[in-house]
């Protein structure tokens, strides 16, 4: 059938299934339909519970009220979302780069590898909550650096651990084979270690992408420059504008999903042998 029908059917899961549609779009519908049904159903139950049960808005606002606020504040959400997104992105790239380089160094030198795991674990146990106010005092109140540093620290650990595992896991057959070709050192790293570690790197990046947004939002709860989603959530909540606070939480959620989806897309592009 034509692709036009595919698009309509994919966009509207309730549309009747056209005969002879491509496998791809049928998979898409099948993959999207259950979460959509659960999501819409969940929202309906939520709305009903709040309306019928007369739940106070400071406990739980109705989805319709949140949506209303979301629509009213859409330009602010967009602006603050961009600010938070920029912080998350810069922190993510910096943390991931340091994580990957540290993992390469740790896999190259045995001693460094043995020392680095406990250090990285300690860094991971470091509570971001404790760190944010300290960093905020270290820099100007107009600086975005504290939040970006917090994000990179949070991002570092999953990227480092996953990359290190990927670099260490070398198939013994691959090693013997490369020995038989008299290929060692950088040639071995370039042809076997790095491509073999790529799926692991992306597993780390995928975990890190959502964490980056969470860290960027939460870091703002503790002062510093107030131009992101986090500051709007706290100020709305302190003004008892709960539906508005929730609207910004939804904005943060969407931002996290965008980061995750981009990471997933990059993974598909970079490791074509796994997605076929």
């Amino acid at each position, binding site marked *: 059938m034509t692709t036009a029908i595919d698009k309509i059917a994919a966009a509207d899961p309730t549309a009747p299934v056209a005969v002879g549609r491509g496998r791809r779009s049928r998979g898409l519908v099948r993959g999207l339909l259950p979460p959509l049904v659960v999501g819409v159903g969940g929202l309906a139950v939520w709305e009903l519970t709040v309306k019928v049960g007369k739940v106070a808005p400071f406990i739980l606002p109705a989805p319709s009220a949140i949506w209303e606020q979301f629509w009213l504040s859409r330009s602010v959400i967009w602006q603050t979302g961009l600010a938070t997104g920029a912080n998350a992105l810069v922190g993510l790239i910096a943390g991931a780069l340091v994580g990957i380089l540290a993992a390469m160094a740790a896999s190259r030198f045995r001693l460094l590898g043995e020392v680095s795991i406990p250090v990285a674990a300690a860094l991971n146990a470091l509570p971001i909550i404790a760190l944010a106010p300290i960093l905020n005092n270290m820099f100007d109140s107009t600086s975005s650096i504290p939040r970006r540093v917090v994000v990179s620290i949070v991002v570092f650990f999953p990227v480092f651990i996953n990359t290190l595992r990927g670099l260490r896991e070398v198939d013994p057959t*691959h090693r*013997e084979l490369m020995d*038989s*070709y008299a290929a060692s050192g950088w*040639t071995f790293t370039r*042809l076997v270690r790095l*491509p073999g570690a790529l799926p692991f790197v992306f597993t780390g990046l995928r975990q890190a992408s959502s964490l980056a947004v969470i860290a960027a939002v939460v870091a703002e709860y503790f002062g510093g420059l107030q131009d992101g989603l986090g500051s709007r959530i706290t100020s709305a909540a302190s003004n008892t504008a709960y539906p508005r606070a929730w609207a910004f939480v939804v904005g943060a959620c969407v931002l996290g999903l965008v980061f995750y989806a981009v990471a997933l897309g990059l993974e598909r592009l970079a490791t*074509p042998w*796994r997605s076929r």
Partner: protein
Amino acid sequence: MTAVALSGVGKVFNAGRADQVVALTGVDLTVESGQFVSLIGPSGCGKSTLLRLVADLIPLTTGTLTVAGKPARKARLDQEYGIAFQQAGLFEWRTVLRNVELPLELRGTGRRERKRRAEEMLELVGLADFAAHYPAQLSGGMQQRVAIARALAVHPPLLLMDEPFGALDEMTRERLQDELLRICAQTGTSTIFVTHSIPEAVYLSDRVVVMSPRPGRITDVIEIDLGPRSEATRQSAGFFAGITKVRRALRGTPAPASASAEVAAG
């Protein structure tokens, strides 16, 4: 011309320590050019160790070893042999074609020549249509054929194989055996083939080297003369006689009384 010559070769792992293991002792073996030699024996008899010594993947402890008239290390650096293992060991991030190209790439062969040779090798193993596929898209038998194509890509005078068909089902295995013999005959490659299947060793080989463990050593060398192989060879009396000979050598029991009975039963 001699492809591989070993004399007085021994290998000791962890020498001088409490967990010292004598893996091989007093191995003398010559493989003539174009010959197909199988190494057979129970687990722990050192057949894989012997293959790795020839490949210079591990250093030998005693004796001398030459490959194509050169010391083993020089032969490895010159890529005088191709090697295939029980695991196909393909690089899953490279397409089939790029896997076969790898040894040529490491040799510094030009892009166009590399592609031509790799395609020729894939043609040889009957996988020309799968050049653009990734290894994960192939069956185990097809992956093993790619591994053989890769081992042959540099046109090595010697092919080393460590139970390459061990993980395959019987039907695929027999088909690949025939394919391997055809390729070896076509290219004039000498082969050392490690296996623990007696019929496989007899069917493929000009000579079957029988080994024994603790310490690993050669106990017998059995000449096989079945002429050009075909489907009928697998049913022939000579084939079964060869199997009986190898089996008896493996058991180390020269019992002539039961010989005829075993041939009839086999």
